[in-house]
């Protein structure tokens, strides 16, 4: 497959995952805010921290991190490149030129998702900024993203397009999970005793965001602690949304790609970082932050390796082995 097209489907994968994960996060957070008594509430600002968009938000809304401003900034604001609206538009644009690489419904689902958000934004009565519209809206966004992923899983041939769209999905997923855990863990672990009695509830809501509650309980029983949640979301091998699982899947897929040595080395490195951390008996917030920081850096590095090895960023590429016997549609 053309290097450029590989890059496009990679970003398609990332943007769809971003759409889904952002919607999940906002849903979870909105629920949390509703359930907690005033004394234990978190700031809406926390969302901006998780998504690293505090600077851009400040430029537009200053210090007014109200619920309305934050939600509209993260959902419908097309000037915020990290909003759900922008992510969907980017996904669609990347898909546009590789439509023939995807199953037929792919483009249709993306169009549908795009129109869905566009229409809701324009219609004030249905605008997701309003709490009563929000849950259904976010649920629908998640459902439509899952529809796209389902189509990929069940009808996309396991070719290079599949490999790269999966890379995009897994890196974004690992990235989002890291961010979320990083911020939430830090906040919760530093809170004084009198407000932290609701924290297991908060952990539960964030696990719901990852669709992880049932899977967690099956593995760990009903008790929730920061440590067990962190270990689950970081390292539970059989749970597809854990960071370790994402890394393992990517390693597996890369086996069939050429020149994969650098990539595999990088994923191994990251997994070691996680495994090392899991050996700790207690959770020390400072160490936790270091671990998350290393993980984030590792994911960025992984992205760079992908781009340098297989996308147009690659310098003098070696001659292809397939040569004259194959048609151009080699993947």
């Amino acid at each position, binding site marked *: 497959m053309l290097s450029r097209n590989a890059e496009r489907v990679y970003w398609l994968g990332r943007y769809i995952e971003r759409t889904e994960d952002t919607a999940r996060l906002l849903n979870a957070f909105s629920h949390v805010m509703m359930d907690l008594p005033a004394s234990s509430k978190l700031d809406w600002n926390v969302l901006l921290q998780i998504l690293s968009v505090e600077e851009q938000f400040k430029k537009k809304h200053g210090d007014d991190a109200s619920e309305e401003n934050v939600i509209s900034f993260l959902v419908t604001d097309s000037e915020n490149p990290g909003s759900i609206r922008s992510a969907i538009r980017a996904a669609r644009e990347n898909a546009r030129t590789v439509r023939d690489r995807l199953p037929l419904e792919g483009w249709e689902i993306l169009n549908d998702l795009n129109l869905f958000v566009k229409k809701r934004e324009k219609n004030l009565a249905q605008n997701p900024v309003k709490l009563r519209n929000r849950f259904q809206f976010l649920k629908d966004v998640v459902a439509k993203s899952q529809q796209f992923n389902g189509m990929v899983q069940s009808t996309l041939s396991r070719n290079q397009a599949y490999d790269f769209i999966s890379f995009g999905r897994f890196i974004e997923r690992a990235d989002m999970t890291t961010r979320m855990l990083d911020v939430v863990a830090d906040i919760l672990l530093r809170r004084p005793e009198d407000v932290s009695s609701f924290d297991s509830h908060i952990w539960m809501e964030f696990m719901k965001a990852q669709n992880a509650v049932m899977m967690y309980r099956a593995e760990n029983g009903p008790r929730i602690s920061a440590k067990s949640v962190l270990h689950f979301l970081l390292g539970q091998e059989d749970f597809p949304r854990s960071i370790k699982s994402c890394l393992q899947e990517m390693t597996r897929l890369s086996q069939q790609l050429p020149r994969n040595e650098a990539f595999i080395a990088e994923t191994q490195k990251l997994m070691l970082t996680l495994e090392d951390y899991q050996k700790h008996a207690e959770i020390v917030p400072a160490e936790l932050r270091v671990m998350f920081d290393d993980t984030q850096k590792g994911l960025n590095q992984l992205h760079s390796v992908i781009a340098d090895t297989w996308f147009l960023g690659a310098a003098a590429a070696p001659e292809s082995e397939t040569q*004259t016997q194959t048609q*151009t549609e080699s993947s």
Partner: protein
Amino acid sequence: MKWNTYDPTPFYDEVLENSEDPRPVADQLFTYLKSLDNPELQARKAASKLCIEEMGVSFTIYSEGNNIDRDWPFDVIPRPIPADEWKLVGEGLKQRMRALNLFINDVYNEQKILEDGIVPRHLIDGSTNFLKACKGITPPHGVWANISGTDLVRDGEGVFRVLEDNLRVPSGVSYMIENRQVTKRIFPEVFNEQSILPVSDYPTHLYEMLASLSPREVEFPIIVVLTPGIYNSAYFEHSFLAQEMGAELVEGADLFVDTDDCVYMHTVDGKQRVDVVYRRVDDTFLDPEVFNEHSMLGVPGIMRAWKKGNVAIANAPGSGVADDKAVYAYVPAMIKYYLGEEALLPNVKTYLCHIEEDCKYTLENLNKLVVKPVNESGGYGLLIGPRASEEELEKFRKLIKANPRNYVSQPTLDLSTAPVITDEGLSPRHLDLRPFILQGKDCWVTQGGLTRVAMIEGSLVVNSSQGGGSKDTWIVET
């Protein structure tokens, strides 16, 4: 459906002979359409629109800015042509293409036709389409314009005449194919009753022709379609043809010329050699090393590779030298000169303003003529005399006097018409026809082509880039 409100006179109508009777070729179509009332007709029209949306047939009009997914404007009533008439037209088109390609090859090599004074030298020397970088080259089979779209019109007597040859980057063929797909879904019954020649084999013929140009003799030469990208008005077609041929759709940055002067593609598996580039990028943007140095659409060094014969480019750069409204007038002379034959397909009478008496005639009869600049495509920059204001006429008078070599004029033609479905029912609209001719090792003509319709009543401007529509074209065996 009442047809006696449809008045085809005074123009030649493709479907009706007079207000009562259809032409023989349209007999079955006419009977079928008569059986539909206006609501039914409107329903078919709506269905065709839906069909086009679903199929994703789209187009871009530059003046519409952001909207790059405008649905292809299509009128559901087909335009029928008898097969035996088409056979003669096809021979005429092939003859014309052979002569034109011999001309282009001559002009970039020995220039015998210029030496012998058949075609004035200044037309070539002064032409911006004559690319010096192409001198001395002979492409595979001596063919430069591998794909041509030759526009035909019927005059008031119903005779097919060539309006112009498009030899650089002619477009519209994918719509010809998609139009047939839509018609089959909307009027399936008619196909059972008549023998209508297929058009969907175009991509196969295109593939074979392109493959015949390959420098390497391999079973599956690597063919790519080079597109300027999604914002180009014909992007849909680029992607359609690439898909149908199993060829990779690439942009400039996906290709590079290596130290061996061969063209390669960047793929995940590494670099892959390219044999044939079907380029939909204008000549001047093809190679920043040789032409426009600011071009981001081309491939630096591709001319090097082409000149060495390491890659074939269709259409060859420089083909535009014959894609010129003044050179057009000399085509019958070319056919005589190179083939020793009379042109089977007539031109439209053309006055060349670089010839003094033609220029005089043009200026004296401006309000009766269509004036065209020698080198623009898409129907822009025309003067349609009978429709022009005194201001426009004056403007053109000045332009012609200042630069007579840049203008030609033709009598306004009574272009033929065919019925389109409007909100009130059927109404005649002017149309033309663009068949496509492929030339590589062999020469082949499409069965029919793209019929372009001026959607506005009375308008003669059919170009899609300016809002024209199209029809399915039927070559009917009777």
